[in-house]
């Protein structure tokens, strides 16, 4: 028997750690979506620079939407800070051992790349803006006319997207005191979850569009930009199938990474095995197996597979489920991770 009593009673620390509430999962979720969108957009920008038919792919345009999502995520992060007036301190220091410091600086690089990428499509999505500010149209034309710059922009999107996606996992991963997070698989897992959530959001945009011609309002134009290929016409069906196939691959990889995460934790120390039990059979089992694995991965995998085989009509249900699963994954990992701790040896 090992019985421990303590007189410590610090808020948010006792009886168990609870310093991070909804703000951090929201930030990790939105950051993950943006990371996924950047990778997808980056790949298509590289294809665009190569001279591929722009009608055959989507998501060159996601940066317009990504800027809004990332800002929302960073606002959630700001809300979480307990000493808000000193937030500027992050940008007068670079701490090489701190993932949070790396992430803050990566975010600072992400914004200009997103803005430049958004410029490429702005006159298509928001013609009113191009009319009001002719410089926008000129800058956009100038960018499109330079495949070398578009290619560089594409690679910048891919590299920063991968960095952002992995960072959201590594941020948790480096904390030795929280065994549930002590797996490097968390980085790739959050990246692939972000990729599938990014693809899901592009899918959702197809549902909220009011029809043709493509809408051009500030919000609807940005939404349309998520889905529309270059130009105003609707993408061909094969483009949609291509996105669905990519999402199937992301979800399948995510499932494998989750299996590896559990294997990694269960075959590690007693602390790690106990931490894995929190999500596999403990208080977060329902949210994990039901919300993350079944609703968030297995169901959309099956539904999208059937859609590709033309056995059921295309709906936005799989996309919605992927988004629910993506958020639940972050929520479960942040909450259960704080509950996990190093288990003391009881042998005597």
């Amino acid at each position, binding site marked *: *028997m*090992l*019985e*421990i*009593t*303590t*007189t*410590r*009673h*610090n*808020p*948010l*620390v*006792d009886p168990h*750690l609870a*310093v*991070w509430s909804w703000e951090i999962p929201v930030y990790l979720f939105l950051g993950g979506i943006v990371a996924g969108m950047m990778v997808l957009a980056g790949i298509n920008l590289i294809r665009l620079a190569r001279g591929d038919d722009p009608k055959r792919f989507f998501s060159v345009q996601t940066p317009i939407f990504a800027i809004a999502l990332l800002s929302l995520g960073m606002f959630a992060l700001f809300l*979480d*800070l*307990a*000493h*808000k*007036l*000193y*937030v500027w*301190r*992050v940008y*007068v*220091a670079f*701490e090489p*051992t*701190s*993932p*949070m*410091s790396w992430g*803050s600086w990566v975010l600072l690089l992400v914004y200009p790349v997103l803005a430049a990428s958004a410029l490429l499509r702005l006159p298509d999505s928001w013609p009113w803006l191009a009319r009001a500010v002719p410089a926008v149209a000129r800058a956009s034309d100038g960018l499109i006319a330079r495949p070398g710059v578009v290619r560089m922009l594409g690679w910048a999107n891919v590299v920063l997207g991968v960095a952002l996606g992995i960072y959201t996992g590594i*941020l948790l991963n*480096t*904390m*030795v*005191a*929280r065994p549930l997070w002590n797996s490097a698989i968390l980085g790739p897992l959050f990246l692939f979850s972000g990729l599938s959530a990014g693809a899901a959001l592009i899918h959702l945009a197809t549902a909220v569009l009011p029809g043709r011609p493509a809408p051009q309002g500030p919000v609807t134009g940005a939404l349309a930009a998520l889905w529309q290929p270059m130009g105003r016409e609707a993408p061909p069906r094969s483009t949609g199938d291509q996105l669905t196939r990519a999402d199937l691959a992301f979800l399948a990889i995510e499932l494998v990474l989750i299996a590896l995460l559990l294997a990694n934790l269960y075959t590690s*120390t007693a602390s790690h095995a106990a931490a894995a039990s929190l999500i596999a059979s403990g208080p977060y089992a329902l949210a994990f197996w039901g919300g993350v694995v079944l609703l968030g991965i297995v169901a959309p995998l099956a539904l999208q597979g059937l859609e590709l085989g033309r056995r059921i009509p295309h709906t936005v249900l799989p996309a919605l489920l992927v988004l629910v699963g993506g958020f639940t994954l972050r929520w479960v990992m942040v909450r259960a991770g*704080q509950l996990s*701790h*190093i288990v*003391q040896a*009881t042998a*005597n």
Partner: protein
Amino acid sequence: MPRFGMVIDTRKCVGCMDCVVACQTENDVPHGYCRDWITTEVRGEFPHLALEIRSERCNHCDNPPCVSCCPTGASHVEPVGMTVQVTSTKCIGCKACISACPYGARYVHPDGYVDKCTFCAHRTTEGRDPACVSVCPTHCMHFGDLDDPKSKVSELLRTRQWHTLLPEAGTRPRVFYLT
């Protein structure tokens, strides 16, 4: 440069909490919070039980995870005494250090910044003992330079059996418990 550490004799500690009260008074710790606390650990099966009472606090680790995760450098190792300190005007309150500490030694001060035991830096840099050590009625707590072989703490660690908390975390804590 000294490397401060603390040695606590669990065979003498009675868990009177004088150290806790002294800390709260000395450091004006806000009501409802604590920088140090008493942990009682009972092992074995009745009637064969072993009891250990410990006065616990920040371990001022040699390999502090709270420092390496801090994005602003607010959590840092002070050159004098190699103690772990928090500069409140650099802290953004992200709470990464609280999550990273395996000992639960940190908390968010009501003013927003993260706070914890300082080893009474304002006293120890003047050559005085931390408040908790100075009031201990059983003289079970010792403070000094671990790098000085002639110091009382070094001598105790050479001559007595001791353990640290969660050594498997790899933090190399500098609060030692004599057994």
